[in-house]
């Protein structure tokens, strides 16, 4: 299954490309699975600062969106993806 992954703002420090096309194997279709694939693809910095933190970091989960919804409002790391979904890593914001 093909998923598009987009990085914004400071998340672009983790990826040389702003948008990636990622293939997920059958049966490996959750956000948690996607993070594992990205960890292998993007390397050490992403692994240390995102992949290893996301399970226990509610705020970070709130910054990962499937379409227009944060995974915090869906099923967190167990959120199921479907072909053609776009996953976005966005910064937080309120006022300013």
């Amino acid at each position, binding site marked *: 299954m093909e998923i598009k992954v987009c990085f*914004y*703002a*400071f998340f*672009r420090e983790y990826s040389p490309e702003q948008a990636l096309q990622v293939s997920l194997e059958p049966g490996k279709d959750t956000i948690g699975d996607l993070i594992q694939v990205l960890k292998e693809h993007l390397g050490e910095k992403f692994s240390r*600062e995102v992949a290893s*933190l996301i399970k226990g*970091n509610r*705020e*970070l989960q*709130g*910054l990962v*969106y499937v379409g*227009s*919804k*944060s995974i*915090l*409002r869906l099923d967190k790391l167990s959120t199921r993806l479907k072909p053609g979904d776009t996953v*976005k890593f*966005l*910064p*937080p*914001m*309120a*006022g*300013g």
Partner: protein
Amino acid sequence: MFEAYNRNLLRINLTDKSFQVEEIPAEVMDKFIGGMGFGVYYLTREVDPAIDALDMGNKLIFATGPLTGTGAPMFAQTALVTKSPLTNGIINCYCGGNLAQKLKSTGYDLVIIEGACSQLSYVLVTPDTVKFIPCPELQGKGVREAEEYISAQEGEDCGTAAIGLAGENLVRFASIISSTRVFGRGGTGAVMGSKNLKGVAFKGTIGVKVHNPRVFALKVDEAFAVFKIATDNPYSLLGVFSRYGTGGGMSLINERYALATRNHTQAHFATADKIDTTAYHKLANSRRIACFGCPIHCGQLHSFQGKDGFFTRGPEYETMYSLGSDCCNDDPLVLARAHNLCEEYGMDTLSAGCTIAFAMECYERGFLSSEDIGFSLDFGNGEALLKALELMARRQGIGDLLAEGTRIMAEKIGRDSAHFAMNSKGMEFAAWMPQRMSGIALTFATSNRGACHKRGPIGQELMGELPMESTEGKAKIVAGIQDKVNALFTLVSCRFADFELPIEMFISLLNAATGMNKDVTDFLDIGERIWNLERLFNLAAGLSSESDMLPARCFEPIEVDGELKSLNREEFEAMVQEYYQVRGWDQQGVPSSVTRKRLGLELPWK
């Protein structure tokens, strides 16, 4: 008697160069606490709502709160209350830095400035005296130069604030600036200019005595611990503000289709990432800067190298919208220079940018010609944007019209320009889109300041805690935020503190510092009391329920990721009526006698 106060106010009369000290009654402390509460209480008692804001009868009230100058984190702001020449209503605004702590160290909790100087002057306040110092040599000078001059004369341990050319020229959205921190909105700089007052300086050494030092220190430690956890987390809101400032979140707003672009005709700016903070980190040498006692340090200083090198504090997110996306300007250097011009001349970047975006649309539609303007004022034309700002501050040529703001401009230009003059009560829109966020629509419509973003459910709507578009339940939520933020502004808290600190902790700090015994209900009641007092002042000043309407553009369809969406006018109007009910106001938005009695509001005017 309550502690943590000086218990005195200083009244300065510029006309006869006199001053007097007055005791602040304990009842006023109890009912209004400080900061915004003090400012609104004294202004509504002492200023006739019907006068012109630039009349000598208007007053400037600088106020601190009981936590100012203590070790409690994120209470560095000074409140300023006056009558606004932009909205014709009351305005409260806030400036960080160290001004509040310096003001309080002079032995006063607030300073009321009346009358007008016979020639351009600044005022120095110390614990012993007030000096009125003529400064004709500062006429037309920028804010930085004026503040440096005053510091050179009076010592670097002064807290200073000054106006620039825009304030002297009575630009309706002129600001007062204190060491790169700004009393931004509503034209307070024009009020200061109308008084021939170039600047103020506070210099003292008086400390703050709290009621229960042991408990207070404990509560301060607890507050610091909350902020430490937040800033240690790179993904929390304050963690991001700490690293990137407010401009770090621009792409979220853009991807949620809520970034006002091209005078609010679009909700997405394709090249937004060229002007967010991460872009500035690549272009400039950047470092962080904090207000007095703040562990967040959300300020961003950028230094641009080269023969025309310069530095800026900011732009903040709001400016990235107003002088950026709303004008279709994606050049980060033009944006930084535009921001710097506003700081030098002392102008609100929000109103300045939003006004230029309006003028750009007027030019595009042929309502203003290149002969009227003197040049081509196209969207995205950076050179024209900078030129327009210069003319605005100088009130030269087309700048004289621009300096009036969008409401008066639309009245003068006519045709149907009012429908896309993006203001509420005359104040230009802050960075958020009523078309996309119904809570923001209600916030902009009902704020006593005009289109102000300080008291709206921005984060909740953007981050998905609340639906962006549905109006259901928003009336109660917005009223609740307005009351809460008003209460916090009595302290005077930074707006960002309550993103992490629970309301109970603010109240614990207040009680330990003052010896008060307030609970959450008492505290929120104070916020509601202030809100209603401001509303009554505005009604007496001539505002009405019609002033709670938004420009027609807010109800027109806008493209959201390929679909057309809009704010439904009937639903919006029903939400406003529901808001009036929640507030205990009648259908015309007038606080009922029952509500006034419940809040203990006495009206000194009819």
